[in-house]
């Protein structure tokens, strides 16, 4: 390869860094809200207020209201996103929801990552009948529509956060198995593996100490995208009534609760959480994409 071509391979595509920053900023904001959202919320996100089905303030009123909120500490907080049919403050619920959504997504993703990498390493490094069976089971699991499978698993286990986490983890594990297995199969024929074997390392030691660290990158990059989709799936489950229990602040549940009011002209209970989901999933997807490009470039 000529020197000029080698340099070109390492040039990041135009805008990739920009996307990385956008994605990183969104993910950072979501993480921040997961940590501090309920504390920052002007109202308790699970308790009703006397204002029922109150629309958000008009755009023209926003400067005045912001000024009042800063200057006067005695007035009741503004319902920036309005209230729903129960009188729950939508802004407080939208910024509190990441704690639930992200917790579910991160724990489920962590579990599936751990399981997927372990099984993927096993199946990629040790090729035998047992590992082939594991792969075929994994294929079968992947062949079911993810959303339907999640609904069935939650229905069987019951409607709780723990069961949603288990359902999502079970569904995402095969993705990591396949990614890790493919990478392990490529790594195990590399020279460093031969070298490790030549100096007397056992196969298990080579797999864990040498092959695994070199096979993690695809799964880790995938995990950023998976977290975004896990948030989307959690919201979807809540939307169809198989997710978290009301009045837990959760975006999908908020959209579901507000959906029936749209016909009556009340768009705000469902539109604001919808925007929040879109931005969050976009953020995780863009971050994953940017990481992938960096990996490919590196």
């Amino acid at each position, binding site marked *: 390869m000529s020197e000029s071509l080698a340099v070109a391979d390492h040039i990041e595509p135009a805008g990739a860094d920009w996307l990385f920053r956008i994605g990183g900023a969104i993910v950072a904001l979501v993480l921040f809200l997961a940590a501090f959202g309920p504390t920052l919320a002007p109202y308790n996100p*699970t*308790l*009703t207020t*006397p204002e*029922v*089905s*109150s*629309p958000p303030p*008009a755009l023209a009123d926003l400067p005045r209201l912001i000024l009042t909120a800063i200057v006067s500490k005695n007035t009741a907080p503004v319902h920036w996103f309005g209230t729903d*049919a*129960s*009188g*729950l403050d939508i802004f407080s619920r939208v910024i509190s929801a990441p704690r639930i959504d992200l917790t579910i997504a991160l724990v489920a993703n962590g579990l599936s990552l751990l399981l997927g990498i372990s099984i993927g390493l096993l199946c990629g490094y040790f090729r035998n009948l047992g590992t082939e069976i594991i792969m075929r089971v994994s294929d079968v699991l992947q062949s079911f529509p993810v959303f339907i499978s999640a609904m069935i698993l939650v229905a069987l286990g019951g409607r709780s956060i723990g069961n949603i986490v288990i359902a999502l983890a079970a569904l995402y594990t095969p993705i990591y198995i396949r990614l890790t297995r493919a990478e392990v199969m490529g790594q195990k024929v590399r020279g460093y593996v031969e070298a490790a074997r030549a100096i007397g390392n056992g196969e298990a030691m080579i797999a864990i100490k040498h092959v695994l660290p070199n096979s993690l990158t695809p799964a880790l990059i995938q995990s950023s995208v998976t977290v975004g989709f896990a948030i989307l799936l959690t919201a979807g489950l809540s939307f169809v*009534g198989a997710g978290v*229990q*009301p*009045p837990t602040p959760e975006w999908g549940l908020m959209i579901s*609760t507000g959906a*029936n*009011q*749209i*016909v*009556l*002209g*009340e*768009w705000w209970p469902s539109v604001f959480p919808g925007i929040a989901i879109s931005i969050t999933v976009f953020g995780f997807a863009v971050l994953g994409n940017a990481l992938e490009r960096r990996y490919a470039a590196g």
Partner: protein
Amino acid sequence: MSPKLPEETSSMSRKFLTVLASTTLAGLALAAPASAADVLFLAEDVPAGLNYDGPAAAIPTSQTGMVNVMEPLVYYATKEVNSEGVSIPDFGKFEGRLAESWTFDKATLTWTFKLRAGVKGCGGATLTADDVLYTFARAKSVSGAAPIGWFLSNVGSIANFTPAVFGDKEENKKAKVLGDEVTKVDDLTVKIRQAEPNALFLPVLTIFGLMIFDKETMEKHATKEDPWSHNFVNNEGMGSFGAYCIERWTKDNEFALTANPDYYRGKPAIDRVVMKKVPQSSNRVVVLQSGQAQLAQSLTPKEYDSLRKAPGVKVGGHSGNQNLFVHMNFKSKPFDNIKVRQAIAYAIPYDAIIANGYFGQASAWAGVVPSTYPGYSAAAEPYKTDIAKAKALLAEAGFPDGKGLEAFADSFALSYVAEKETTVGPIVNAIQSSLREAGFPVTLNPMPQTQYGDRQLVKKDLPFAINEQEKPIGVDAGYATQLFFVSGDKGGLNNMINYSNPMVDDTWAKARVEPDNAKRDAMLASIQKQLMSDVAWLPVVEYKTQFAWSDKISGIGWHPDNSIRFFDLKGK
């Protein structure tokens, strides 16, 4: 209070409505009525079955099917048309339906019914005494999955309709056969004998669960395995003498009826009624507003409220027997503590529920029996929201500021029907917030209707719940007492809270057979006073049964089963 929408919101809403209406209407095109004299009725479902001795009897839309294709012996006269254009029955005045007249012999406790001559059913058969005997024989056979006919006969004290019918022993088999308690005098005369004096006799005859079958048609569809034609009325059709005949019945989709031309009260004004399943209430609203449908029911209070202002649509209702109460199970700690129950009673946000949950179409309920029913007695001092008093009572109960209640977290999971989230959601959220303010660690527990029903009425193990679907169809305070508050082992079939008080059991046992109405009412009043004092149910509100209809029709009527009688409808 309904919010005033900004101009852009209304505009956006209208555009959205247009799109939604177009898509929903496309789906309804096949069901659209053929002429202005036809009615398209949008409901959450169509009848799942027409057999009142089966599980379908508990489903409101199935009841709507039954009452329009069947006919009772007697019914209530119309009292008035209220200010909202809804006719109301007079519970103190019975009028003949299939029975032209009747007499009662106090000495022998025997009722003699003279049937109308020349009443023709959809199958072409003419009403005779044999149809009445068939109906009661079928009820006594307890051959259906849910013996409602037997239950109502038992509640009305018809002789020999006793629990002896249940079982497979020889004596049980004999008890299932209709004897001389219901006899044919001639082709148009029937005698029914009671075992004891009981004022519930005529009220139970008005209920859909004792409407009269057309024996001839029913027997045509009988089989050796199913001699009482349960499968036929569960799945295919009906043999009776109602105002409408079944034209087409596609479960989960459509129930089309045509007027019975030989109906004894005259041919119905509406030639054809198509009951169409539109599961989402918001879609029913859109289609009704578009003018394509003429009638809709089971909307949310908020949707009814919005339709009151819609052009071409009328909304009306009547506070008859629908109510909302808090269910606290006496077998679940800490609800066995009267102070805890009273504390909860003072922590309920009654006014907020009326305003925000029912948009003003409800009123505080001061008793445990519908206030429109004969025998109702209001509490002298109904519960009102008083958080300070609730906290004081909680402290008296041994839980100052709610400390110690965390141990009963499972008990404080407030259950409700998940499918009714749109209607009940604002109410349970308001209750949760208010109870938390008073110190109760309440969480919400929506559950599917089937699971809710199973745990509430079969297992009876729901600790804490919101119930807005129990309505005593038998129009009498005694019927409600018998059904909900008498101890389970003494016949309290739907005593879902496991309440048991010897005073209530004993007083009802006497009131049940008391022929003097004044004395009976006094006994019923003392029972209701005791129930309120024990917080057996925690009554919250009585809400209106509402209907929404096109201004091109009239004749909407409220009935204790909350089902519209299509015969009463008129086109304009």
